[in-house]
């Protein structure tokens, strides 16, 4: 009898200890997962989403360059504007030749659904993620610059000289081509791209970023509510970035 009680208690102890060990082991993981609630890096991008942006040029501040500065800081760009310097986003001033109407707007990689840079890249380094973000695989870019020839938006830059003091999250390198990534490192953490955040901080609210496939997202609702256009719509690229007010 006493032997069976001993056995019973030791089994309970074992189960208790086991539950404790399992809790200690799994708990933090579950907790962190709950905190982060973003997808794991190995999970990969999902085609259920398509990241995109709507830019309201009527709200874009004339002379304001905050989106450009924020991009440079986030991605470790020098901010220099020489012919050989990288510019992932730039402010473009346009003037209607007939009416004389002047506007200012940010221009960057338009993250096309049918990106010419991806079509022409000989090695496949230029690629589009499942969620629509167009990127350059730095490991297989050979620096041929054919993508720069093909991009209708002049969105890409070639790294002309050795780089120092890089942002570890945004690896760049001499001899490779690069462009706006929609701040993919931030998007994967469910954050907004740096340019959008900077625009909102300035209260311009000219840029709305989000999932174009989610009808409840702010960007999808805005696109449904207002008329918007693609730049070089004649190319039929179905850009992820659209403009309102031009």
């Amino acid at each position: 009898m006493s032997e069976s009680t001993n056995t019973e208690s030791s089994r309970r102890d074992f189960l208790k200890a086991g539950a404790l060990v399992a809790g200690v082991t799994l708990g933090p993981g579950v907790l962190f997962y709950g905190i982060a609630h973003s997808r794991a890096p190995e999970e990969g991008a999902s085609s259920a989403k398509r990241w995109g942006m709507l830019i309201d040029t009527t709200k874009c501040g004339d002379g304001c360059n905050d989106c450009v500065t924020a991009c440079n800081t986030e991605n470790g760009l020098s901010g220099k504007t020489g012919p050989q310097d990288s510019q992932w986003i730039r402010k473009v001033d346009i003037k209607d030749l007939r009416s004389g109407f002047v506007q200012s707007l940010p221009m960057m990689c338009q993250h096309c659904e049918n990106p010419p840079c991806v079509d022409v890249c000989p090695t496949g380094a230029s690629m589009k993620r499942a969620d629509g973000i167009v990127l350059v695989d730095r490991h297989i870019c050979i620096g041929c610059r054919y993508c720069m020839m093909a991009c209708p938006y002049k969105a890409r830059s070639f790294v002309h000289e050795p780089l120092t003091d890089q942002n570890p999250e945004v690896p760049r390198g001499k001899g490779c081509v690069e462009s706006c990534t929609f701040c993919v490192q931030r998007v994967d953490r469910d954050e907004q791209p740096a340019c959008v955040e900077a625009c909102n901080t300035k209260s311009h609210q000219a840029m709305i970023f989000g999932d174009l496939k989610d009808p409840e997202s702010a960007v999808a609702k805005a696109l449904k509510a207002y008329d918007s256009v693609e730049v070089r719509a004649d190319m039929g690229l179905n850009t992820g970035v659209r403009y309102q007010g031009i």
Partner: protein
Amino acid sequence: MATNEYCANKQECKTTQFWLLLGLGGLIVLSALYAFFTLEHHGHVLTGMNNQVVWGLPHVFAVLLIVAASGVLNIASIGSVFGKSVYKARAPLSGMLALAMLSGGLAVLVLDLGRPDRLIVAMTYYNFKSIFAWNMIFYNGFFAIVGLYLLTLMDRKMNAWSKPVGFVAFLWRLGLTTATGSIFGFIAARSGYNSALMAPMFIVMSFGYGLAVFMVVQSAMYYWNDQLLDVNVRRRMKNLLAVFVGASLYFTIVFHLTNLYFAKQWEYERFILLDGGIYTTTFWVGQIILGGIVPLILLFIPRSGGAGSGKTERICFCFLAPLLVVLGGLAQMYVTIIGGQAFPMPLFPGHEVSSTFYDGVVASYSPSKWEWMLGIGGVGIAFLLTVIAVRVFKFMPHDDFEELKMRRATD
């Protein structure tokens, strides 16, 4: 006897001159290598290339060499595929020149990459939607097929295969130049490209550039051996060159006329034809006058003057006119490649555009000495390979004049 040691043809044994030529070619290639290592270390910041003009002078030389390489093989094709015996005698030299020039052109293309150390990546990762990737396949295949073709031409045991292999080589070279022209033709975004005419125009131009290079090399070889090229062979080749130069001019006119018909292309045409500065000058003076009209005059005027087979005619036919055609080729590539990029992309049609990234303005580009060294180095590689090849193999054309006479009688 010792002086004859390294030469396949006894009459070619001018050893001192041979070493001098070898030294000259070697120096040019060495300077290109020096430029390459400097650029590899410091980056393209030392070149005139920038984020607006991304392909510069090295590409001008590289594409010209590649296009001329496919064109020079035409001589062999006329012999093997179309059975003309004058050209058959020249097929080995034509094949060798094609390989030498493709080597030079590809070397420049590779050495100008941002990451030339990743050549193995370019050879192992293929995006088959990219015409550039197809070009790599065409280039590699060209080496293999033309190499085999040369073997069938030069090894008597394999002679019987020269016709079918020559036919494959002919088709392959048409594919190669189509792909090279399409590198530009498939760029929909830029006004200067985006045309189905690019591929056939490059093919026609390749005929001219290739034949011109062949005529210069052939003339140099005859001069070297104190021989005179048969006047009928010479006349045949110069007439063919005139046809190719005329056809190139025709394609150029049609290309620009088509653009002039499209309202959205007017600004680009105004840029190239009227107020594009260096590009307008290079187009009219380099490509059209020096590379087209003057060679045509040189090829036809002396004959009408009744000079017959005189020395002036020889120099005009064999050196001057073909050299000008090659120079015109260089001008054409400069206008096509650099001019096409310098002209601003139509980001917002109907608007005046400006930005810190040089939108809406003509991009500035002036090649640095490193680019010249690299580009000319490609010509140096082709030259060096040719000098060695004609020394160690029998590439000197040997015409069978009896057969020629018979053919002429039956033609």
